[in-house]
């Protein structure tokens, strides 16, 4: 069950896994996520689905090694099974023809953005894609996005590829155009989504963000994923993961994401020490 049938390393810290998961592939729609557990004593972590193939019975996950569980996941090989995998979870994206849709993806957020962007294009929207990353090495899915986008803008923080800018710069320009976008979808690090929402706010362009919070069950039971949206408490797992970016309290969300930071940082550092030790042992 949950066999990895293809593994690709996209960059130093980014991996793509194609996984046999017929039940999830049968039901999943853009915007939904899965929860997985790699080891018997492991954590359950949510990851948004990057692609799926119902005929083949597979789903694709793209993830960055940011902590213990993602490191363990990256250590798995083709033909290995993922211990536990459940989904699809969360509400799917509301896909509708609205006119022009600007999809903004930051870093690894481009992965979950891809199926949404594709669905928005297929239904007949004009699709503008803005991809941003720290550097050239961290840009993912550029070719795939190029195939579906009417226009694509790439930015890097260090200028190693595309424009040397934050994604908010081209987003602001898009909002200032005579025909401003009808919808913006921003997925990426919380701080990026926060500033995308701030960028579009003055132009009153509806802006959807997809939140990835701390989660255990993913079915509404634990409440660990709760966020404040428009002054009310909402659960990312059953009410989201997508919300109106202009209403999300990002500061609270970012604080809550840091609940276990000390332990996570320690575990992450340990992972890197172990990787370094292994490399050394292997010469």
């Amino acid at each position, binding site marked *: 069950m949950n066999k990895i049938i293809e593994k690709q390393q996209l960059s130093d810290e980014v991996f793509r896994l194609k996984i046999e998961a017929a039940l999830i592939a049968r039901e999943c729609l853009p915007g939904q996520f899965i929860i997985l557990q790699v080891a018997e004593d492991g954590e359950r972590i949510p990851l948004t689905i990057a692609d799926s193939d119902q005929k083949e019975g597979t789903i694709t996950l793209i993830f960055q090694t940011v902590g213990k569980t993602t490191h363990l996941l990256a250590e798995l090989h083709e033909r290995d099974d993922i211990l*536990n995998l459940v989904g699809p979870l969360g509400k799917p994206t509301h896909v509708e023809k609205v006119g022009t849709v600007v999809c903004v993806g930051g870093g690894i957020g481009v992965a979950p953005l891809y199926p949404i962007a594709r669905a928005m294009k297929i239904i007949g929207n004009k699709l503008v894609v803005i991809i941003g990353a720290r550097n050239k090495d961290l840009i993912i899915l550029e070719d795939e996005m190029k195939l579906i986008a009417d226009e694509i803008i790439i930015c890097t923080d260090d200028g190693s590829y595309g424009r040397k800018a934050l994604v908010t710069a081209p987003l602001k320009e898009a909002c200032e155009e005579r025909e401003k976008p009808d919808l913006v979808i921003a997925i990426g690090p919380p701080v990026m989504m926060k500033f995308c929402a701030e960028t579009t706010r003055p132009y009153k362009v509806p802006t959807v963000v997809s939140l990835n919070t701390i989660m255990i069950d993913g*079915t509404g*039971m634990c*409440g660990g994923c*709760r966020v404040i949206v428009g002054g009310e*408490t909402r659960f990312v797992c*059953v009410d989201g993961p997508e919300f109106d970016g202009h209403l999300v309290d990002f500061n609270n969300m970012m*604080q809550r994401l840091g609940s*276990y930071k*000390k332990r996570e940082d320690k575990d992450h550092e340990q992972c890197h020490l172990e990787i370094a030790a292994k490399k050394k042992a292997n010469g």
Partner: protein
Amino acid sequence: MDKILPDNKDLKPKDRMAIPAQEMPLQDPVERVDNMQEVALGYTQEQAQLEAMRCIQCKSSPCIAGCPVQIDIPGFIKAIADGENKLAIDIIKKNSLLPAVCGRVCPQETQCQAPCTVGKSLKDVNKAVSIGRLERYVADWERDHAMVSAPKVEKETGKKVAVIGSGPASITVAADVRREGHSVTMFEAFHKTGGVMVYGIPEFRLPKKIVHEEIDILKTMGIEIKRNFVVGRTRKLADFIEKDGFDAVFIGAGAGLPRFMNIEGENLVGVFSANEYLTRANLMRAYDKDKAHTPMFDSRKVGVLGGGNVAMDAARMAVRLGAEEVHLIYRRTEVEMPARVEEVHHAREEGVIFHLLENAKSIIGDENGHVIAMECLRYELGEPDDSGRRRPVVINGSEFIIDLDTVIVAIGNDSNPLIKQTTPDLETNKWGNIVVDEKCKTSIDGIYAGGDIVLGAATVILAMGQGRTAAKSINEYLE
């Protein structure tokens, strides 16, 4: 043996009433706060027989009426008194599939033991025959002697039943429906089966080994179990019947959504639902800090809001996880607490500080959004409310502050929204609970429901009682 037990058949009611109520041996409070092992250790054979001899076998047997699954209580107790443990457990198993669980977590003092004639005669419900402890004793005896056997399964009928959830209601339905020869598939959202008995009730009250053994019996009976399967998401309920060929479905998905107080500061870092706190500790085994990858919040001063069993579990878990102070805040008095008396008593023994007639007004955070304190209000009891309990009335201007770094909210659950969201024809009430008739049938033919998803947060035994009813209806429906 230095003490020879009397022969059960020689005892007159007067002799029986004279036998002292047998105390449950317990782990010492000083030791147990540092471990996760079970607090109550169980009767010895001698204690069990003596306790069983206290039952006067009264004609009216009010205990049976007090039991949600109508176990022949005097029957099994007499068997224990006679030294016939196997007979005793067989009698219980006619009605209850989970005696080792129910013997531990049922609120017997408000059910079977409440109307006990012995307790009434001695004018003290605590002196009633300890039915629950005896039930636990024979269930453990059967397991320790490797005598547990799976119920007999009738010839295959070719009918297919889906059971959603793997908690007490679902386990009961699965077994009762499978017995009739129907094929049963159980669907569990988590990676481990057992529902609330695994993620909610802590190890120190219900060892997980017991739950796993009960599930193993289902497997022996030929029940297929699919984990990591969220009905409503992995598959829609309607598809079970329309596309997957199930003839009937039972929904025992449990209480889902934790309630919060809707007060200021409730989303600060350090505020948890009891569900999350307990799930981390129990299901994800985060108490085993060296092994588990799932982190547990580092707490020094914990406040628990609520007065039910879940609040007690959370408070006692916090003690075991090393909190220096654990405060339990409840707006009524101990008399109104829905928690079992035994759990309240154990919590006090373990050093939990009780704040009665107090309630949270707001939670206060620092500049980083971390909890540093809670503002509370004092209450007094007023006139009785709809529930018959005296209504707590706030004392104006009674605000005060407790320093805390962690707040655990344990004030109940609303029902899980997933199945409802994805099954438009399923009738639910204003709290989101599934509406069923007296046969546990929902508004859709062939679909039945029971347990917390129908009752709101209730108990293991009430869930089992509904499971019994639902299984009977499903078996009739499939005839």
